[in-house]
Protein backbone atom coordinates (compact mmCIF):
# COMPACT_ATOMS: atom_id res chain seq x y z
CA UNK A 1 0.00 0.00 0.00
CA UNK A 2 1.21 3.47 -0.77
CA UNK A 3 2.05 5.85 2.02
CA UNK A 4 -0.21 8.84 2.37
CA UNK A 5 1.71 12.06 1.52
CA UNK A 6 0.40 13.45 4.81
CA UNK A 7 2.76 11.08 6.61
CA UNK A 8 5.69 12.62 4.76
CA UNK A 9 4.62 16.11 5.75
CA UNK A 10 4.14 14.94 9.31
CA UNK A 11 7.68 13.54 9.27
CA UNK A 12 9.07 16.83 8.02
CA UNK A 13 7.12 18.62 10.75
CA UNK A 14 8.32 16.40 13.57
CA UNK A 15 11.93 16.44 12.42
CA UNK A 16 11.80 20.22 12.07
CA UNK A 17 10.60 20.52 15.64
CA UNK A 18 13.70 18.61 16.70
CA UNK A 19 15.94 20.78 14.55
CA UNK A 20 14.28 23.85 16.04
CA UNK A 21 14.79 22.48 19.52
CA UNK A 22 18.54 21.96 19.13
CA UNK A 23 19.16 25.09 17.08
CA UNK A 24 17.32 27.36 19.49
CA UNK A 25 19.05 25.95 22.56
CA UNK A 26 22.33 26.96 20.97
CA UNK A 27 21.20 30.57 20.56
CA UNK A 28 23.09 32.75 23.00
CA UNK A 29 20.73 34.30 25.60
CA UNK A 30 21.91 37.80 24.77
CA UNK A 31 20.37 37.38 21.31
CA UNK A 32 16.97 36.22 22.49
CA UNK A 33 15.26 39.43 21.43
CA UNK A 34 16.61 39.27 17.86
CA UNK A 35 15.63 35.59 17.89
CA UNK A 36 12.03 36.58 18.54
CA UNK A 37 11.98 39.24 15.86
CA UNK A 38 13.58 36.97 13.26
CA UNK A 39 11.28 34.03 14.02
CA UNK A 40 8.47 36.49 13.66
CA UNK A 41 9.76 37.51 10.24
CA UNK A 42 10.23 33.97 8.98
CA UNK A 43 6.84 32.78 10.23
CA UNK A 44 5.43 35.35 7.81
CA UNK A 45 6.37 32.92 5.05
CA UNK A 46 2.64 32.30 5.39
CA UNK A 47 2.59 34.95 2.67
CA UNK A 48 3.02 32.15 0.11
CA UNK A 49 -0.46 30.96 1.03
CA UNK A 50 -1.72 34.51 0.77
CA UNK A 51 -0.18 34.95 -2.68
CA UNK A 52 -1.80 31.78 -3.99
CA UNK A 53 -5.13 32.83 -2.48
CA UNK A 54 -4.87 36.30 -3.97
CA UNK A 55 -3.75 35.37 -7.46
CA UNK A 56 -5.39 32.07 -8.18
CA UNK A 57 -8.85 31.52 -9.50
CA UNK A 58 -10.78 33.49 -11.96
CA UNK A 59 -8.54 36.15 -13.49
CA UNK A 60 -11.56 38.12 -14.74
CA UNK A 61 -12.67 38.81 -11.23
CA UNK A 62 -9.67 40.05 -9.24
CA UNK A 63 -11.61 40.79 -6.09
CA UNK A 64 -13.52 37.67 -5.32
CA UNK A 65 -14.01 37.25 -1.54
CA UNK A 66 -11.31 34.60 -1.25
CA UNK A 67 -8.90 36.86 -3.15
CA UNK A 68 -9.63 39.83 -0.91
CA UNK A 69 -8.66 37.82 2.15
CA UNK A 70 -5.53 36.80 0.28
CA UNK A 71 -4.61 40.41 -0.46
CA UNK A 72 -5.27 41.48 3.13
CA UNK A 73 -3.03 38.67 4.34
CA UNK A 74 -0.34 39.83 1.91
CA UNK A 75 -0.31 43.31 3.46
CA UNK A 76 -0.12 41.93 7.00
CA UNK A 77 2.59 39.42 6.16
CA UNK A 78 4.58 42.02 4.21
CA UNK A 79 4.59 44.37 7.21
CA UNK A 80 5.99 41.52 9.25
CA UNK A 81 8.57 40.38 6.74
CA UNK A 82 10.06 43.79 6.10
CA UNK A 83 9.57 45.00 9.66
CA UNK A 84 10.88 41.80 11.21
CA UNK A 85 14.02 41.39 9.14
CA UNK A 86 14.91 45.08 9.20
CA UNK A 87 14.47 45.50 12.93
CA UNK A 88 16.54 42.36 13.48
CA UNK A 89 19.22 43.78 11.23
CA UNK A 90 19.12 47.03 13.18
CA UNK A 91 19.48 45.25 16.50
CA UNK A 92 22.23 42.91 15.37
CA UNK A 93 24.23 45.84 14.01
CA UNK A 94 24.42 47.19 17.57
CA UNK A 95 26.09 44.16 19.09
CA UNK A 96 29.76 45.02 19.20
CA UNK A 97 32.76 43.39 20.76
CA UNK A 98 35.06 45.21 23.12
CA UNK A 99 37.61 47.25 21.21
CA UNK A 100 41.09 45.82 21.53
CA UNK A 101 42.75 49.22 22.06
CA UNK A 102 41.20 49.98 25.40
CA UNK A 103 41.31 53.56 26.54
Amino acid at each position, binding site marked *: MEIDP*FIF*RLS*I*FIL*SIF*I*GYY*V*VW*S*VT*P*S*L*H*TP*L*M*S*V*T*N*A*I*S*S*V*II*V*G*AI*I*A*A*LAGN*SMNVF*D*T*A*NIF*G*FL*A*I*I*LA*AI*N*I*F*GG*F*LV*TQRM*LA*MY*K*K*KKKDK*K
Partner: protein
Amino acid sequence: MISSNLLAIFYLISGVLFILALRGLSSPETSRQGNLYGIIGMALAISVTILSVGNFSLGFLYLIIFLLIGGSIGAFIAFKIPMTAMPELVAGFHSLVGLAAVFVAISAFLNPEIFNLGTPGNIKVASLIEMSLGAAIGAITFTGSIIAFLKLRGIMSGSPITFFGQHYLNLFLGISLLALISYLCIKQIDTLFWAIIIISLLVGVLLIIPIGGADMPVVISMLNSYSGWAAAGIGFTLENTALIITGALVGSSGAILSYIMCKGMNRSFFNVILGGWGGNDETSSSSVQKEKKPVKNGNADDAAFLMKNASSVIIVPGYGMAVAQAQHALREMVDALKKNGVKVSYAIHPVAGRMPGHMNVLLAEANVPYDEVFELDEINNDFANCDVAYVIGANDVTNPIAKSDPQSPIYGMPVLDVEKSKSVLFVKRSLSPGYAGIDNDLFYRDNTLMLFADAKKMTEEIVKSL
Protein backbone atom coordinates in the same frame (compact mmCIF):
# COMPACT_ATOMS: atom_id res chain seq x y z
CA MET B 1 5.27 27.58 -14.91
CA ILE B 2 7.27 25.65 -12.33
CA SER B 3 6.49 22.00 -11.80
CA SER B 4 5.20 21.22 -8.36
CA ASN B 5 8.20 18.99 -7.66
CA LEU B 6 10.63 21.78 -8.44
CA LEU B 7 8.52 24.14 -6.37
CA ALA B 8 8.70 21.77 -3.41
CA ILE B 9 12.48 21.69 -3.73
CA PHE B 10 12.66 25.47 -3.68
CA TYR B 11 10.48 25.55 -0.59
CA LEU B 12 12.80 23.03 1.01
CA ILE B 13 15.75 25.32 0.25
CA SER B 14 13.90 28.23 1.88
CA GLY B 15 13.28 26.06 4.91
CA VAL B 16 16.97 25.21 5.16
CA LEU B 17 17.89 28.88 4.84
CA PHE B 18 15.55 29.67 7.72
CA ILE B 19 17.24 27.01 9.84
CA LEU B 20 20.59 28.65 9.04
CA ALA B 21 19.12 32.03 10.00
CA LEU B 22 18.37 30.73 13.48
CA ARG B 23 21.67 28.89 13.66
CA GLY B 24 23.50 32.16 13.00
CA LEU B 25 22.14 33.57 16.25
CA SER B 26 24.40 31.31 18.27
CA SER B 27 26.89 34.16 18.33
CA PRO B 28 26.72 37.87 17.53
CA GLU B 29 29.46 37.50 14.89
CA THR B 30 27.52 35.03 12.75
CA SER B 31 24.12 36.54 13.45
CA ARG B 32 24.17 39.18 10.74
CA GLN B 33 24.96 36.60 8.11
CA GLY B 34 22.17 34.44 9.53
CA ASN B 35 19.70 37.25 9.07
CA LEU B 36 20.81 37.53 5.45
CA TYR B 37 20.09 33.82 4.93
CA GLY B 38 16.63 34.44 6.33
CA ILE B 39 16.02 37.28 3.89
CA ILE B 40 17.23 35.17 0.94
CA GLY B 41 15.01 32.29 2.03
CA MET B 42 12.01 34.58 2.20
CA ALA B 43 12.72 36.21 -1.17
CA LEU B 44 13.10 32.75 -2.73
CA ALA B 45 9.83 31.48 -1.28
CA ILE B 46 7.92 34.54 -2.46
CA SER B 47 9.40 34.56 -5.98
CA VAL B 48 8.87 30.88 -6.71
CA THR B 49 5.31 31.11 -5.43
CA ILE B 50 4.55 33.98 -7.77
CA LEU B 51 6.17 32.09 -10.66
CA SER B 52 4.26 28.93 -9.85
CA VAL B 53 0.90 30.69 -9.97
CA GLY B 54 2.06 32.27 -13.22
CA ASN B 55 -0.79 34.72 -13.30
CA PHE B 56 0.71 38.00 -14.45
CA SER B 57 -2.56 39.77 -15.10
CA LEU B 58 -4.14 42.56 -13.14
CA GLY B 59 -3.97 40.54 -9.95
CA PHE B 60 -0.19 40.49 -10.14
CA LEU B 61 -0.10 44.27 -10.27
CA TYR B 62 -2.24 44.45 -7.14
CA LEU B 63 0.00 41.90 -5.49
CA ILE B 64 3.05 44.10 -6.03
CA ILE B 65 1.18 47.17 -4.80
CA PHE B 66 0.01 45.45 -1.62
CA LEU B 67 3.45 43.98 -1.05
CA LEU B 68 4.97 47.45 -1.33
CA ILE B 69 2.35 49.03 0.95
CA GLY B 70 2.94 46.41 3.64
CA GLY B 71 6.67 46.50 3.08
CA SER B 72 6.95 50.24 3.49
CA ILE B 73 4.82 50.23 6.62
CA GLY B 74 7.03 47.48 8.04
CA ALA B 75 10.26 49.23 7.07
CA PHE B 76 9.04 52.51 8.51
CA ILE B 77 8.19 50.87 11.83
CA ALA B 78 11.50 48.99 11.89
CA PHE B 79 13.54 52.16 11.53
CA LYS B 80 11.47 54.38 13.80
CA ILE B 81 10.87 52.10 16.76
CA PRO B 82 12.93 52.90 19.87
CA MET B 83 14.74 49.89 21.31
CA THR B 84 12.88 50.23 24.61
CA ALA B 85 9.62 49.55 22.75
CA MET B 86 10.84 46.24 21.35
CA PRO B 87 8.50 44.06 23.46
CA GLU B 88 5.41 45.89 22.19
CA LEU B 89 6.70 45.72 18.65
CA VAL B 90 7.22 41.99 18.79
CA ALA B 91 3.77 41.50 20.34
CA GLY B 92 2.28 43.65 17.59
CA PHE B 93 4.06 41.66 14.90
CA HIS B 94 2.81 38.40 16.36
CA SER B 95 -0.75 39.63 16.12
CA LEU B 96 -0.22 40.28 12.39
CA VAL B 97 1.07 36.75 11.78
CA GLY B 98 -1.96 35.42 13.63
CA LEU B 99 -4.39 37.48 11.60
CA ALA B 100 -2.65 36.61 8.32
CA ALA B 101 -3.03 32.91 9.22
CA VAL B 102 -6.73 33.45 9.85
CA PHE B 103 -7.16 35.22 6.51
CA VAL B 104 -5.34 32.52 4.56
CA ALA B 105 -7.45 29.87 6.28
CA ILE B 106 -10.61 31.78 5.40
CA SER B 107 -9.70 32.03 1.74
CA ALA B 108 -8.80 28.35 1.69
CA PHE B 109 -12.20 27.57 3.19
CA LEU B 110 -14.10 29.80 0.77
CA ASN B 111 -12.19 28.75 -2.30
CA PRO B 112 -10.65 25.33 -1.69
CA GLU B 113 -10.17 24.60 -5.40
CA ILE B 114 -7.18 26.91 -5.71
CA PHE B 115 -5.32 24.91 -3.09
CA ASN B 116 -6.54 21.54 -4.46
CA LEU B 117 -8.44 20.81 -1.30
CA GLY B 118 -11.75 19.85 -2.88
CA THR B 119 -14.78 22.00 -3.60
CA PRO B 120 -16.71 24.33 -1.26
CA GLY B 121 -18.90 22.23 0.98
CA ASN B 122 -16.92 19.18 0.05
CA ILE B 123 -13.43 19.80 1.42
CA LYS B 124 -11.20 16.90 2.38
CA VAL B 125 -11.61 16.11 6.06
CA ALA B 126 -7.88 16.23 6.80
CA SER B 127 -7.58 19.67 5.20
CA LEU B 128 -10.61 20.83 7.10
CA ILE B 129 -9.07 19.86 10.44
CA GLU B 130 -5.77 21.48 9.49
CA MET B 131 -7.30 24.73 8.35
CA SER B 132 -9.61 25.02 11.36
CA LEU B 133 -6.70 24.41 13.69
CA GLY B 134 -4.58 26.96 11.79
CA ALA B 135 -7.41 29.48 11.90
CA ALA B 136 -8.13 28.84 15.58
CA ILE B 137 -4.52 29.14 16.71
CA GLY B 138 -4.08 32.15 14.43
CA ALA B 139 -7.10 33.87 15.94
CA ILE B 140 -5.92 33.16 19.49
CA THR B 141 -2.50 34.55 18.59
CA PHE B 142 -4.12 37.61 17.06
CA THR B 143 -6.25 38.77 19.98
CA GLY B 144 -3.82 37.45 22.60
CA SER B 145 -1.01 39.49 21.09
CA ILE B 146 -3.19 42.57 20.92
CA ILE B 147 -3.90 42.30 24.64
CA ALA B 148 -0.19 41.74 25.30
CA PHE B 149 0.60 44.76 23.14
CA LEU B 150 -1.88 46.96 25.02
CA LYS B 151 -0.50 45.83 28.37
CA LEU B 152 3.12 46.38 27.36
CA ARG B 153 2.31 49.74 25.85
CA GLY B 154 0.62 50.76 29.10
CA ILE B 155 -2.70 51.46 27.33
CA MET B 156 -4.17 48.66 29.39
CA SER B 157 -3.26 48.19 33.03
CA GLY B 158 -0.60 45.56 33.60
CA SER B 159 -2.44 44.14 36.56
CA PRO B 160 -4.17 40.84 36.00
CA ILE B 161 -7.89 40.81 35.31
CA THR B 162 -9.55 37.86 36.97
CA PHE B 163 -13.17 37.02 37.58
CA PHE B 164 -15.16 34.19 39.07
CA GLY B 165 -15.24 31.03 36.99
CA GLN B 166 -12.65 32.28 34.53
CA HIS B 167 -10.88 28.97 34.20
CA TYR B 168 -14.16 27.12 33.75
CA LEU B 169 -15.20 29.54 31.04
CA ASN B 170 -11.90 28.98 29.24
CA LEU B 171 -12.26 25.24 29.61
CA PHE B 172 -15.81 25.41 28.29
CA LEU B 173 -14.74 27.51 25.30
CA GLY B 174 -11.84 25.17 24.59
CA ILE B 175 -14.10 22.13 24.60
CA SER B 176 -16.68 23.83 22.42
CA LEU B 177 -13.90 24.70 19.95
CA LEU B 178 -12.98 21.04 19.64
CA ALA B 179 -16.65 20.11 19.34
CA LEU B 180 -17.20 22.67 16.60
CA ILE B 181 -14.15 21.47 14.67
CA SER B 182 -15.36 17.86 14.84
CA TYR B 183 -18.85 18.88 13.82
CA LEU B 184 -17.43 20.88 10.91
CA CYS B 185 -15.81 17.70 9.62
CA ILE B 186 -19.18 16.01 9.50
CA LYS B 187 -21.26 18.90 8.21
CA GLN B 188 -19.46 21.61 6.29
CA ILE B 189 -21.54 24.62 7.17
CA ASP B 190 -19.96 28.06 6.81
CA THR B 191 -21.44 29.24 10.10
CA LEU B 192 -19.49 26.59 12.00
CA PHE B 193 -16.23 27.84 10.55
CA TRP B 194 -17.02 31.45 11.49
CA ALA B 195 -18.04 30.32 14.97
CA ILE B 196 -14.67 28.61 15.39
CA ILE B 197 -12.87 31.82 14.49
CA ILE B 198 -15.02 34.01 16.74
CA ILE B 199 -14.66 31.73 19.75
CA SER B 200 -10.90 31.55 19.18
CA LEU B 201 -10.70 35.34 19.10
CA LEU B 202 -12.48 35.39 22.44
CA VAL B 203 -10.20 32.70 23.89
CA GLY B 204 -7.17 34.78 22.90
CA VAL B 205 -8.43 37.71 24.97
CA LEU B 206 -9.45 35.59 27.94
CA LEU B 207 -6.15 33.75 27.95
CA ILE B 208 -4.00 36.84 28.28
CA ILE B 209 -6.02 39.23 30.49
CA PRO B 210 -5.37 37.33 33.75
CA ILE B 211 -1.59 37.46 33.23
CA GLY B 212 0.26 40.24 35.01
CA GLY B 213 2.64 42.72 33.41
CA ALA B 214 5.80 41.18 34.80
CA ASP B 215 4.91 37.78 33.37
CA MET B 216 5.00 39.29 29.90
CA PRO B 217 8.30 37.61 28.97
CA VAL B 218 6.48 34.27 29.17
CA VAL B 219 3.44 35.58 27.34
CA ILE B 220 5.42 37.01 24.44
CA SER B 221 7.42 33.81 24.06
CA MET B 222 4.23 31.78 24.23
CA LEU B 223 2.53 33.87 21.55
CA ASN B 224 5.70 33.54 19.47
CA SER B 225 5.27 29.81 19.75
CA TYR B 226 1.55 29.98 18.85
CA SER B 227 2.24 32.04 15.74
CA GLY B 228 4.56 29.21 14.67
CA TRP B 229 1.98 26.49 15.25
CA ALA B 230 -0.60 28.54 13.35
CA ALA B 231 1.80 28.79 10.41
CA ALA B 232 2.44 25.05 10.58
CA GLY B 233 -1.31 24.36 10.57
CA ILE B 234 -1.71 26.43 7.43
CA GLY B 235 1.38 24.73 6.01
CA PHE B 236 -0.31 21.33 6.34
CA THR B 237 -3.44 22.69 4.70
CA LEU B 238 -1.55 24.11 1.76
CA GLU B 239 0.83 21.13 1.63
CA ASN B 240 3.69 23.58 1.75
CA THR B 241 7.04 22.39 3.12
CA ALA B 242 8.46 25.87 3.71
CA LEU B 243 5.53 26.71 5.98
CA ILE B 244 5.65 23.40 7.81
CA ILE B 245 9.38 23.68 8.50
CA THR B 246 9.14 27.32 9.54
CA GLY B 247 6.10 26.73 11.68
CA ALA B 248 7.86 23.93 13.52
CA LEU B 249 11.01 26.01 14.01
CA VAL B 250 9.15 29.05 15.32
CA GLY B 251 6.85 26.93 17.42
CA SER B 252 9.68 25.17 19.19
CA SER B 253 11.69 28.37 19.49
CA GLY B 254 8.85 30.11 21.32
CA ALA B 255 8.27 27.08 23.50
CA ILE B 256 11.93 26.96 24.54
CA LEU B 257 11.94 30.67 25.34
CA SER B 258 8.79 30.25 27.45
CA TYR B 259 10.48 27.40 29.28
CA ILE B 260 13.63 29.47 29.93
CA MET B 261 11.52 32.37 31.20
CA CYS B 262 9.46 30.14 33.50
CA LYS B 263 12.60 28.58 34.86
CA GLY B 264 14.03 32.05 35.47
CA MET B 265 11.08 32.67 37.77
CA ASN B 266 10.95 29.14 39.18
CA ARG B 267 7.33 28.84 38.15
CA SER B 268 5.57 26.23 36.12
CA PHE B 269 4.16 27.17 32.77
CA PHE B 270 0.61 26.50 33.99
CA ASN B 271 1.11 28.68 37.00
CA VAL B 272 1.91 31.58 34.68
CA ILE B 273 -0.88 30.84 32.22
CA LEU B 274 -3.53 30.54 34.86
CA GLY B 275 -2.43 33.99 35.87
CA GLY B 276 -3.41 36.23 38.71
CA TRP B 277 0.13 37.16 39.66
CA GLY B 278 1.52 40.63 40.07
CA GLY B 279 -0.87 43.29 41.23
CA ASN B 280 0.03 46.94 41.47
CA ASP B 281 2.69 48.13 43.83
CA GLU B 282 0.06 49.83 45.98
CA THR B 283 -2.18 46.83 46.48
CA SER B 284 0.36 44.88 48.46
CA SER B 285 -0.49 44.82 52.13
CA SER B 286 2.90 43.81 53.42
CA SER B 287 4.61 46.99 52.28
CA VAL B 288 3.03 49.25 54.90
CA GLN B 289 4.21 47.60 58.08
CA LYS B 290 7.74 46.99 56.93
CA GLU B 291 8.51 50.53 55.98
CA LYS B 292 9.43 51.27 59.57
CA LYS B 293 12.68 49.37 59.24
CA PRO B 294 15.68 51.64 58.92
CA VAL B 295 17.32 52.01 55.56
CA LYS B 296 20.52 53.74 54.66
CA ASN B 297 19.85 56.57 52.33
CA GLY B 298 22.53 57.92 50.04
CA ASN B 299 23.03 60.46 47.32
CA ALA B 300 24.91 60.61 44.05
CA ASP B 301 28.14 61.81 45.63
CA ASP B 302 28.24 58.88 48.06
CA ALA B 303 27.63 56.50 45.20
CA ALA B 304 30.31 58.11 43.07
CA PHE B 305 32.80 57.96 45.92
CA LEU B 306 32.09 54.29 46.61
CA MET B 307 32.39 53.24 42.99
CA LYS B 308 35.44 55.34 42.20
CA ASN B 309 37.34 53.66 45.00
CA ALA B 310 36.19 50.20 44.11
CA SER B 311 38.29 47.83 42.07
CA SER B 312 35.34 46.00 40.57
CA VAL B 313 31.73 46.96 40.02
CA ILE B 314 28.89 44.77 38.77
CA ILE B 315 25.87 46.44 37.25
CA VAL B 316 22.48 44.76 37.58
CA PRO B 317 19.96 46.31 35.18
CA GLY B 318 16.25 45.61 35.22
CA TYR B 319 13.00 46.75 33.70
CA GLY B 320 13.25 50.08 35.54
CA MET B 321 16.29 50.95 33.44
CA ALA B 322 14.23 50.48 30.29
CA VAL B 323 11.38 52.58 31.65
CA ALA B 324 13.73 55.41 32.61
CA GLN B 325 15.69 55.03 29.34
CA ALA B 326 18.81 55.09 31.50
CA GLN B 327 21.01 52.83 29.36
CA HIS B 328 22.98 55.65 27.74
CA ALA B 329 23.60 57.45 31.02
CA LEU B 330 24.65 54.13 32.49
CA ARG B 331 27.22 53.59 29.75
CA GLU B 332 28.65 57.09 30.41
CA MET B 333 28.95 56.23 34.07
CA VAL B 334 30.75 53.01 33.24
CA ASP B 335 33.12 54.84 30.89
CA ALA B 336 33.97 57.28 33.65
CA LEU B 337 34.57 54.41 36.07
CA LYS B 338 36.79 52.60 33.60
CA LYS B 339 38.91 55.71 33.28
CA ASN B 340 39.47 55.41 37.02
CA GLY B 341 40.67 51.87 36.53
CA VAL B 342 37.56 50.19 37.85
CA LYS B 343 36.65 46.82 36.35
CA VAL B 344 33.01 46.85 35.34
CA SER B 345 30.74 44.05 34.18
CA TYR B 346 26.99 43.64 33.75
CA ALA B 347 24.85 40.86 35.22
CA ILE B 348 21.60 40.00 33.47
CA HIS B 349 18.90 37.89 35.04
CA PRO B 350 16.96 35.73 32.55
CA VAL B 351 13.68 37.51 33.27
CA ALA B 352 15.02 41.05 33.55
CA GLY B 353 12.86 43.29 31.40
CA ARG B 354 9.69 42.48 29.57
CA MET B 355 10.95 40.01 27.00
CA PRO B 356 13.80 37.53 26.61
CA GLY B 357 17.06 39.36 25.97
CA HIS B 358 15.48 42.79 26.48
CA MET B 359 18.34 44.15 28.62
CA ASN B 360 21.00 42.88 26.25
CA VAL B 361 19.50 44.80 23.35
CA LEU B 362 19.27 48.00 25.36
CA LEU B 363 22.88 47.72 26.51
CA ALA B 364 23.96 46.96 22.96
CA GLU B 365 22.10 50.06 21.84
CA ALA B 366 24.12 52.10 24.35
CA ASN B 367 27.31 50.67 22.80
CA VAL B 368 28.12 48.36 25.67
CA PRO B 369 30.33 45.61 24.23
CA TYR B 370 28.52 42.28 24.51
CA ASP B 371 31.51 40.55 26.07
CA GLU B 372 31.12 42.69 29.19
CA VAL B 373 27.57 41.44 29.66
CA PHE B 374 27.08 38.17 31.54
CA GLU B 375 24.22 35.80 32.26
CA LEU B 376 23.25 34.76 35.76
CA ASP B 377 25.19 31.48 35.81
CA GLU B 378 28.32 33.06 34.41
CA ILE B 379 28.62 35.89 36.89
CA ASN B 380 26.83 34.88 40.06
CA ASN B 381 29.99 33.71 41.82
CA ASP B 382 31.72 37.00 41.11
CA PHE B 383 29.52 39.02 43.44
CA ALA B 384 31.43 37.66 46.44
CA ASN B 385 34.62 39.25 45.13
CA CYS B 386 33.11 42.46 43.93
CA ASP B 387 33.24 45.77 45.74
CA VAL B 388 30.07 47.42 44.54
CA ALA B 389 26.90 46.07 42.96
CA TYR B 390 24.93 48.81 41.22
CA VAL B 391 21.29 47.69 40.97
CA ILE B 392 19.41 49.84 38.52
CA GLY B 393 15.73 49.14 37.94
CA ALA B 394 15.87 45.53 39.10
CA ASN B 395 14.25 44.30 42.29
CA ASP B 396 12.82 40.81 42.75
CA VAL B 397 15.66 39.19 40.82
CA THR B 398 18.05 40.31 43.56
CA ASN B 399 15.89 39.39 46.54
CA PRO B 400 17.83 37.08 48.87
CA ILE B 401 14.55 35.88 50.39
CA ALA B 402 14.22 33.56 47.38
CA LYS B 403 17.06 31.55 48.88
CA SER B 404 16.09 31.64 52.54
CA ASP B 405 12.32 31.74 53.07
CA PRO B 406 10.32 28.75 51.81
CA GLN B 407 7.11 30.69 52.60
CA SER B 408 7.93 33.37 50.09
CA PRO B 409 6.15 33.20 46.73
CA ILE B 410 9.45 33.61 44.94
CA TYR B 411 11.24 30.93 46.98
CA GLY B 412 13.47 28.86 44.75
CA MET B 413 13.67 31.42 42.00
CA PRO B 414 17.25 31.82 40.85
CA VAL B 415 18.46 35.24 42.00
CA LEU B 416 21.60 37.29 41.57
CA ASP B 417 23.68 37.11 44.75
CA VAL B 418 23.94 40.87 44.95
CA GLU B 419 24.07 40.90 48.76
CA LYS B 420 27.41 39.10 48.73
CA SER B 421 29.25 42.09 47.30
CA LYS B 422 30.90 44.49 49.75
CA SER B 423 28.36 47.19 49.18
CA VAL B 424 25.16 47.44 47.22
CA LEU B 425 23.87 50.58 45.58
CA PHE B 426 20.18 50.28 44.92
CA VAL B 427 18.66 52.86 42.59
CA LYS B 428 14.92 52.91 43.09
CA ARG B 429 12.18 55.48 43.27
CA SER B 430 10.69 54.22 46.53
CA LEU B 431 10.72 51.27 48.88
CA SER B 432 7.70 49.73 47.20
CA PRO B 433 7.93 46.00 46.58
CA GLY B 434 8.40 44.56 43.13
CA TYR B 435 5.87 42.81 40.96
CA ALA B 436 5.73 39.75 43.18
CA GLY B 437 4.37 42.04 45.88
CA ILE B 438 7.05 41.10 48.38
CA ASP B 439 9.42 43.26 50.27
CA ASN B 440 13.06 43.07 49.32
CA ASP B 441 15.18 42.24 52.33
CA LEU B 442 18.15 43.76 50.56
CA PHE B 443 16.89 47.30 51.23
CA TYR B 444 17.53 46.96 54.96
CA ARG B 445 20.93 45.34 54.92
CA ASP B 446 23.90 47.12 56.41
CA ASN B 447 25.86 47.05 53.21
CA THR B 448 23.04 48.49 51.14
CA LEU B 449 22.82 52.14 50.25
CA MET B 450 19.50 53.18 48.80
CA LEU B 451 19.55 55.85 46.13
CA PHE B 452 16.01 57.14 45.87
CA ALA B 453 15.63 58.72 42.45
CA ASP B 454 14.73 58.14 38.87
CA ALA B 455 17.24 55.69 37.41
CA LYS B 456 18.34 58.01 34.64
CA LYS B 457 18.62 61.15 36.78
CA MET B 458 20.58 59.39 39.50
CA THR B 459 22.98 57.86 37.01
CA GLU B 460 23.53 61.23 35.32
CA GLU B 461 24.23 62.85 38.68
CA ILE B 462 26.75 60.15 39.51
CA VAL B 463 28.47 60.80 36.18
CA LYS B 464 28.71 64.47 37.12
CA SER B 465 30.26 63.86 40.50
CA LEU B 466 32.72 61.31 39.16
